[in-house]
């Protein structure tokens, strides 16, 4: 039965050896050998240390292409031309689905055709040695970024391959990323991943773990994201993880974003054990981007400005080509530099904004009530509580595609652009909190002369890509300045 208990060493070894048999490259992932490799790395590649000792927000992009040489080139480019402080390796979708066979085909095709036929780096297929070559070819520490519900083999291979940070978690890489994966099973799989990281940690190789804060990336109310971060942090800590980077995705309202990042750090430190070092990561806007690089740079600019005000430990940057597709390396580096310029111009300024405390307070109260509800759903066991709370809808994520989540919660912005909750489902939130949200949404409804409804949600989902923060109803729908894209979108008739 699922329990929030540390996996015994022998069980870890047993499962590991079973998993290593699933794909030929698994055999090369020898733990002792891996420890040795990690110990051979210079201090500048120790992810946890570099991140935790930084005196300014470190920048990290997302990036992954199928071939090893291309991936090395890409990362070197992001380091030298983008000034990335921390590097990523984003994994392809087949690997995320554990379809190593299909990934192998895609990789072979990529090698033959020279085209990027996969949307990321199939690390399992590449295997341990290739990963080590990658780690050795760059100067900064590298993280595995993916979206994999069952990331056990991926973790075995990549950690043995020298990566020192591993993104994801049982909620954050299930609920937003899949339809049918069972949540209980996913938690077990991540207990394994965390336990593996814990095993490295015990041997002095402190693997950084980063739960994925943005979730569905689309108007996620801060308290929900924070509650999920705390729960995943707790589960990871149980397994021996000692370096935890909790995430949060920008919503675009400056006061709310700064308040949320502070609340995240505050509650992270409060809930997580003292021997785990807690850091925070701020993701630049994760929702729909404008179909125009110039306006996208504006969105990125607001991300950088917010980061300068909130001072998270790390910022995950976006590129101006986010709307279009996987960015070119130049665009990816551009996103880094735009962000860097804003942070560096603002970070030395003292800019004290009113009302942050109040918003932070509201977020903390709500997040606490969600975490407490998880704990009580599990009679004190966070693992079981998570499953039960999602099942009952006490914990929920808006726009969740997963069958494990109610997805009954619907967010909408208030008149100031802060993300509030319009539909609560069965979310475990105090009535007093609900009243505050409802009052704020009523205020907006009055301003707009329409009633609160799904139309607000739909309008808000598109607002930033349409060039605004709040999806106000417009008298006419067309018009507006051009967007630098040739066709104003739409269909191409086949006749």
């Amino acid at each position, binding site marked *: 039965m699922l329990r929030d208990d540390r996996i015994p060493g022998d069980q870890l070894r047993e499962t590991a050896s079973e998993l290593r048999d699933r794909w030929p490259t698994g055999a090369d992932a020898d733990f002792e050998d891996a420890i040795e490799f990690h110990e051979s790395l210079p201090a500048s590649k120790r992810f946890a240390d570099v991140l935790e000792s930084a005196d300014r927000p470190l920048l990290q992009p997302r990036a992954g292409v199928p071939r090893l040489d291309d991936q090395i080139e890409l990362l070197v480019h992001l380091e030298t031309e983008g000034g990335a402080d921390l590097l990523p390796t984003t994994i392809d*979708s*087949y690997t*995320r*689905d554990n*379809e190593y066979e299909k990934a192998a085909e895609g990789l072979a095709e990529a090698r033959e055709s020279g085209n*990027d*036929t*996969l*949307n990321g780096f199939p690390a399992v297929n590449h295997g341990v040695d290739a990963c080590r070559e990658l780690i050795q070819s760059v100067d900064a520490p590298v993280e595995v970024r993916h979206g994999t519900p069952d990331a056990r083999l991926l973790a075995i291979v990549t950690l043995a391959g020298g990566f020192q940070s591993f993104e994801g978690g049982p909620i954050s890489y299930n609920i*937003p*990323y*899949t*339809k*049918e994966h069972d949540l209980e099973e996913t938690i077990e799989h991540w207990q394994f991943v965390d336990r593996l990281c814990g095993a490295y940690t015990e041997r002095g190789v402190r693997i950084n773990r980063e739960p994925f804060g943005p979730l*569905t990336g*689309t108007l996620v109310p801060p308290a929900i994201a924070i509650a999920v971060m705390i729960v995943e942090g707790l589960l990871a800590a149980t397994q021996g993880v000692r370096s935890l980077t909790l995430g949060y995705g920008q919503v675009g309202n400056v006061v709310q974003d700064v308040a949320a990042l502070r609340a995240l750090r505050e509650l992270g430190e409060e809930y997580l054990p003292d021997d785990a070092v807690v850091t925070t990561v701020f993701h630049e806007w994760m*929702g*729909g981007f404008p*179909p125009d690089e110039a306006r996208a740079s504006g969105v990125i600019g607001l991300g950088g400005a917010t980061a300068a005000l909130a001072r998270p430990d790390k910022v995950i940057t976006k590129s101006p*080509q986010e*709307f*279009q*597709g*996987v*960015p*070119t390396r130049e*665009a990816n580096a551009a996103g880094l530099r735009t962000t860097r310029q804003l942070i560096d111009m603002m970070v030395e300024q003292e800019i004290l904004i009113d009302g942050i405390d109040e918003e932070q307070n509201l977020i903390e109260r709500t997040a606490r009530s969600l975490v407490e509800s998880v704990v009580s759903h599990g009679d004190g066991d966070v693992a079981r509580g998570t499953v039960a709370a999602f099942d009952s809808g006490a914990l929920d994520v808006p*726009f*969740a*595609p997963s069958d494990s989540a109610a997805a009954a919660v619907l967010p909408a912005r208030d008149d100031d652009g802060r993300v509030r909750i319009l539909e609560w489902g069965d979310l475990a939130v105090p009535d007093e909190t609900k009243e505050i949200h409802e009052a704020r949404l009523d205020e907006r409804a009055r301003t707009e002369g329409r009633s609160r409804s*799904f*139309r607000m949600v*739909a*309008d808000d*989902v*598109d607002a930033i890509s*349409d060039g605004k923060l709040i*999806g106000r*109803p*417009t008298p006419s*729908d067309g018009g507006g300045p051009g967007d630098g*894209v040739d*066709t*104003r*979108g*739409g*269909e*191409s*008739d*086949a006749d």
Partner: protein
Amino acid sequence: MAVAAIGGDTHMGQTVILGVIGSDAHVVGITILEQALTAAGFDVENLGVQTSKAEFVSAAESEDAGAVLVSSLYGHAEQDCQGLHERLADADCDAVTYIGGNLAVGQNDWAETEDVFRELGFDRVFDAETDPEAVVASLERDLDHTTTETERVSVNS
């Protein structure tokens, strides 16, 4: 985005199948589309994300669907749609087929992308800038049109 007034006419009772194909989990687009189509009076069967070709085909078959709307955002649309139209044909399904979303990996040329999906058999190809209202308008045209033609055929026979 503007959403059509809730409670338009019902459109010939012909079901519209909607889903995200392959292992793609981007759900926001179809959530918005479902809402817009429903508001415009269409009967929508939303299969959700990570829907296989087989699921599309069997839903289209069992609902005698007028249209099959395939969404794909994550960049593997081409692979995921291989053979879909053959299977629809095998199942004697004559629904119009649309595909929409972000259809290529990386910064590809749209005209090229478009051709690829026409070749695969899609009647209409929509990019990620598509306004839901445009989809509603298109479907209204295509479904009324299809219905009329079918009627004419039966009169002649």
